């Protein structure tokens, strides 16, 4: 299992486009939005929590098809499925690798971009906390979408259509945490709900994803 994690991380680092692209996209969103809505600090401060969460979500979405598609194309997925590792574990580890390569950099970069968007000072801590709690769910749910569409040629758009509705609860609670945190309100409830969704998704979705991959390999 650890060998698989190391392999996936190595692949992401060496193939390029792993760490870099998602992060660059996130940066672009943070730059483009002020250009679109205007530079008034008050407006930016109000929309910053939502923009940062939507940006992180889209950056995550961009790299999802790499989770299984490359392994499917070169036959590795067949070999992984016939290896002694349980496929559920393979899915979970691959989602973890995706989070380390995509989600974690987003969490770390978010405070910097929050400065660009004029997020109120009280919100920074909650931005990092909510992204750290929520992005693992994005990776696991995304892995499920990628598993469903792994056999579909040019399935990227279809995958977005399947995954985005599944992202909505995470997005709502995540952005709500930051919004409330920035306004100095209590954040315990949305934070707990966000954590609950992540915990549930991490615990259960790998089974659904593994089932989908088995069906797709048949």
């Amino acid at each position, binding site marked *: 299992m650890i060998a698989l994690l190391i392999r996936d991380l190595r692949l992401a680092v060496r193939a390029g486009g792993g760490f870099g692209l998602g992060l660059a996209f996130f940066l672009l969103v943070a730059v483009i939005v002020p250009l679109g809505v205007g530079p008034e600090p008050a407006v930016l401060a109000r929309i910053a929590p939502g923009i940062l969460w939507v940006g992180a979500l889209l950056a995550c979405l961009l790299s999802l098809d790499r989770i299984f598609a490359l392994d499917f194309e070169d036959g590795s997925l067949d*070999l992984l499925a016939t290896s*002694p590792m349980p496929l559920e574990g393979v899915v979970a580890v691959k989602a973890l690798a995706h989070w380390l390569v995509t989600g974690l950099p987003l969490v770390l970069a978010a405070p910097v971009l929050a400065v660009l968007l004029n997020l109120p000072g009280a919100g920074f801590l909650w931005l990092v906390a909510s992204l750290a709690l929520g992005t693992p769910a994005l990776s696991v749910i995304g892995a499920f979408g990628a598993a469903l569409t792994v056999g579909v040629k040019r399935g990227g758009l279809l995958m977005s259509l399947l995954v985005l509705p599944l992202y909505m609860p995470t997005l709502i609670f995540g952005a709500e945490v930051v919004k409330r945190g920035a306004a100095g309100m209590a954040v315990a409830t949305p934070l707990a709900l966000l954590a609950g969704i992540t915990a549930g998704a991490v615990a259960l979705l790998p089974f659904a994803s593994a089932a989908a991959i088995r069906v797709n390999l048949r």
Partner: protein
Amino acid sequence: MEMWVKDLSVARAGIPVLEAVSFRLLPGQALVLRGPNGIGKTTLLRTLAGLQPALAGEVVVGAESVAYAAHADGVKAVLTVAENLAFWAAAYGTDAVAGALAAMNLEALADRRAANLSAGQKRRLGLARLLVTGRPIWVMDEPTISLDQASVMLFAGVVARHLAAGGSALIATHIDLGLEAEVLDLTPFKARAPQAGGRIGAFDEAFG
């Protein structure tokens, strides 16, 4: 460790392709599958590897005893040869990378990225993976594609040693590997049309 296939019928995309295939593969034995393109060799091998369910029949085989080598090698281009093998060795919980590199004559290439290998070298790497699995029954789909004459002989030697050590091999190939192997021609097992008494899926059955 033996593999016993009883009355196996397999389907591709829901359509039966082979029916009532039976054979027994004993330790030390190699079995070569022959048959024209499209007869269902790959489908049969994928079924035996556990990637797809059988339509009917039974495969009796020890748990965790089959290693499957598909058409595609599953070689990662950005990893080195040694890293590729080390991953599979770790996945199967063995420690046989050095031996596998030596056996497939890959030692000189160990630190080269797989992207810089020729097609034949990549194939050798893919086959070396079988050695690090430590599994007794090798199920191989056209293993000699893109191998040159010398590499084919090298590979045949590896298989022969595997058999001598009590392993067994099921090989779909058209090339004579020079092994003492039984040949199973799949042509007689081609699925018949339902009018001719062939098996039909449960869904069609309902329409009588």
